[in-house]
């Protein structure tokens, strides 16, 4: 017998209560999902009442409902952006044809792979973040972490909905497998490497939500162009939630920087040792974290030359970022794009067919967006009157995917020898000492309105609540 009240427990705009087949599939999956949440969701938080934003519909009034809820009772809804009547495919070989409402047989395997890969990242980041609640710098931040977690959970639902609804038995099996893989597990890891890395501390978490969730934005934007209409509409709605995750990252790192520069001015020093003694994270350490997370994240876009990318585009499965706004033929045949590789100890640009370089095109769009946010962090430093700038490293720095994998490139884009790399790597990437220092700052602060000493309070609270609002009630 069904234990789920479909209209109430799972707010949706996909007529769930009338779709018996889908209901049966979800009924099997849902208890396993809840078990997964109990085992791998935020540690020790099952009974907390958290001030969460819940979507109950896709219109502007319905998608941001705030209230205290226990996370397992959060209503992981299934939402697709409203359908566009007569939507046409607007790129690739099928340009101008009607968008697909069902999965064309010939694209079934590729679409499933795209959806599974996207779906796999969602529970993975919950797993990566499951211990962070134990070291939160404030109740405000704890709430933001949990909000990110439940929305990752909802995004998993969104992908599982597509798998169940459109991929039959294969889809159900993939849905199960999403709950079986574990981030960082040797035997059954998550699909993408960045999602097997640890997120051991809050600086990593903020960097992750800034850089890696921004990768999510670009992947979702590219999928929101898809000819497979249900995927396009699902990912479009996911984007509205992804925005909050990037906000957590951008404002989080910004507040760490704010606290650091305040202390630099107070102590009149830029000596990392003195700043560490004062309990804040020095700017060079922040730069090294930035270098690490940026380089690991841009690997997520895949190899710089990829025939899969060409196929996904030509067949209409995955578009470019803001495909609809671009002024070209949207077929890209015969066009070229520059990608980097190392020839004779030098970085050189190589012209390749545009279709094969679409991963690189998306990566470059992402880089431009990332740089903008880093410039906003620099404004905080600038406003404090400190002549230091954070920099996004060169895109060839510390890469493990594509033609640059293994090349030894400095953050400013110089090819260096293995010996020089070994000597300098500790200036460029977080060292075990850096990580140990940051870890030493991680203590749990949960009193309303109080903040750990290494981070500044936010400018404003969530949903215009005061900063000292009781965002989490510990029961």
């Amino acid at each position, binding site marked *: 017998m069904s234990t789920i009240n479909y209209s109430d427990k799972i707010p949706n705009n996909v007529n769930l209560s009338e779709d018996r087949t889908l209901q049966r599939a979800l009924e099997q999956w849902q208890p396993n999902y809840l078990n997964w949440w109990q085992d791998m969701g935020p540690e020790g938080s099952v009974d907390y009442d958290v*001030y969460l934003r819940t979507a109950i519909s896709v219109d*502007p*009034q*319905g*998608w*941001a*409902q*705030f*209230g*205290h809820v226990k996370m397992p009772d959060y209503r992981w809804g299934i939402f697709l952006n409203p359908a566009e009547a007569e939507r046409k495919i607007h790129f690739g070989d099928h340009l101008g044809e009607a968008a697909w409402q069902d999965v064309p047989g010939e694209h079934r395997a590729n679409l499933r792979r795209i959806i599974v890969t996207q779906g796999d990242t969602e529970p993975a980041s919950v797993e990566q973040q499951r211990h962070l609640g134990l070291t939160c710098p404030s109740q405000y931040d704890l709430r933001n972490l949990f909000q990110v977690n439940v929305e990752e959970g909802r995004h998993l639902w969104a992908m599982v909905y597509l798998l169940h609804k459109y991929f039959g038995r294969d889809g159900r099996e993939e849905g199960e497998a999403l709950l079986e893989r574990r981030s960082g597990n040797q035997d059954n890891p998550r699909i993408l490497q960045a999602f097997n890395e640890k997120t051991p501390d809050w600086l990593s978490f903020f960097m992750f939500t800034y850089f890696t969730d921004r990768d999510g*934005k670009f992947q979702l*934007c590219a999928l929101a162009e898809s000819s497979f209409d249900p995927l396009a509409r699902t990912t*479009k709605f996911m*984007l*509205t939630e*992804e*925005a*909050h995750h*990037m*906000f957590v990252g*951008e*404002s989080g790192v910004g507040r760490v920087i704010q606290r650091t520069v305040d202390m630099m001015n107070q102590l009149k020093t830029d000596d990392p040792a003195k700043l560490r003694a004062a309990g804040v994270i020095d700017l060079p350490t922040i730069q090294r974290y930035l270098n690490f997370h940026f380089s690991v994240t841009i690997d997520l876009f895949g190899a710089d030359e990829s025939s899969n990318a060409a196929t996904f585009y030509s067949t209409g499965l995955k578009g470019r970022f803001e495909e609809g706004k671009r002024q070209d033929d949207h077929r890209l045949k015969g066009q070229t794009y520059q990608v980097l590789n190392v020839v004779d100890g030098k970085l050189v640009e190589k012209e390749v067919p545009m279709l094969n370089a679409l991963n690189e095109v998306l990566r470059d769009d992402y880089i*431009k*967006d990332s740089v*903008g*946010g880093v410039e*906003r962090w620099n*404004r905080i430093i600038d406003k404090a009157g400190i002549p230091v700038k954070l920099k996004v490293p060169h895109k060839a720095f510390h890469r493990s995917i594509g033609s640059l994998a293994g090349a030894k490139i400095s953050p400013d884009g110089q090819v260096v020898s293995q010996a020089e790399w070994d000597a300098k790597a500790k200036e460029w990437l977080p060292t075990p000492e850096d990580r140990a220092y940051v870890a030493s700052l991680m203590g749990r602060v949960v009193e309303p*309105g109080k903040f750990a000493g290494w981070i500044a309070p936010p*400018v*404003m609270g969530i*949903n*215009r*609540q*005061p900063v*000292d*609002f*009781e965002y989490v009630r510990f029961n």
Partner: protein
Amino acid sequence: MTTTFKQHLIDPEICIRCNTCESICPVQAITHESRNYVVDAAKCNFCMDCISPCPTGSIDNWRLMPQTQPYTLAEQFGWDDLPAEKTPEQLAAMGVAEGVTVTADDAAPQAQTDAAPDPTGQAPFNPSAYNATLPPWSAAHAYTNLYGPRAAEAFVTATVVGNVRVTEVGTEYDTHHLMLDFGAMPFPVLEGQSIGIIPPGADAQGRPHHPRQYSIASPRNGERPGYNNISLTIKRVLQDHQGNAVRGVASNYLCDLKVGDTVQVTGPFGTSFLMPNHPRSHIVMICTGTGSAPMRAMTEWRRRLRKSGKFEGGKLMLFFGARTKEELPYFGPLQSLPKDFIDINFAFSRTPDQPRKYVQDLLRERAADLAPLLQDGNTHTYVCGLKSMEEGVVLALRDVARGAALNWDEIGARLKREGRLHLETY
């Protein structure tokens, strides 16, 4: 003459360029370049759809600008910071005539008389636009003006039957609970009504004092049930802001009355600040200082009715502010009311070593509980206290509504229309 409008702008310093606003805007008024997200003043129709989805709050910024010279897209694309609000002089230099700088009136002239939508959600905010002039549908019928200049009798004489201090005596204030008995004279009252007291003697010009109004602090069947008496909460200020001794004419007279003294009373007054009588009605009470008098009256009436088992469904929530615990009238008795009868929230703005807290802070804190009440047609909200609290309280109620994704303009207008939001400030 150039008029002004509130231009919708995005704060580039807080905006994270997540694209949510652009994707949700139904009229494509929002666009971006590599640097900034911006709002096209020519297209924005103030639908506010972009406000709640924004994760940062950067979308909710407004600047008063001449209608003919809004910030252009090119200007906005170049910003690192939001420009400051233009001064009246700068606006005048742009051709805005003096006296027409407040434009919500230009844009929405009905705002003064009706709870009309404020397109910007920004000042000028007129809380009294939401004040109901009608009583709740289930209120008892009130008698008014039985005594006064236009009545058959100019006043009725009442006898003081009690006068007790209800706060610790401070240096700057002194608050009393005064009981008046009308003997055999008719003086029917309801909770929320007020009476007039005529201080004896004459003013500096030799004219008799005009009556001063005080809210009744007792329920309809008397401070002492079954007797023809009422009570008042009277605060006298002992010092002005400079520390000089001051004595108000009426409150000082009343605080010094002894049992057995008589006073001249007019009234009763008030036909809308009345409590609902139906058994499932909820009452939200927001007050400061002696603004607690009508709240005490309503609470006591409910308490008496509850003893008879008549009000099981109705909730009572009280938000009570004072400078310190010591200045809060009835602090002790309030503490002893059962928690399942009334949900009491205190705000103290001058407790040493504590952050200042006001009733509007409490309202926001209790948003989770207030939001469902605001949507419930059985809820009646009363605000009583200093004039300055009015705006903060109504703005907080608006925030509570918006926080729950409710349309405040609709709710506020309905509260007014249905006699469910009452503001009485002085």
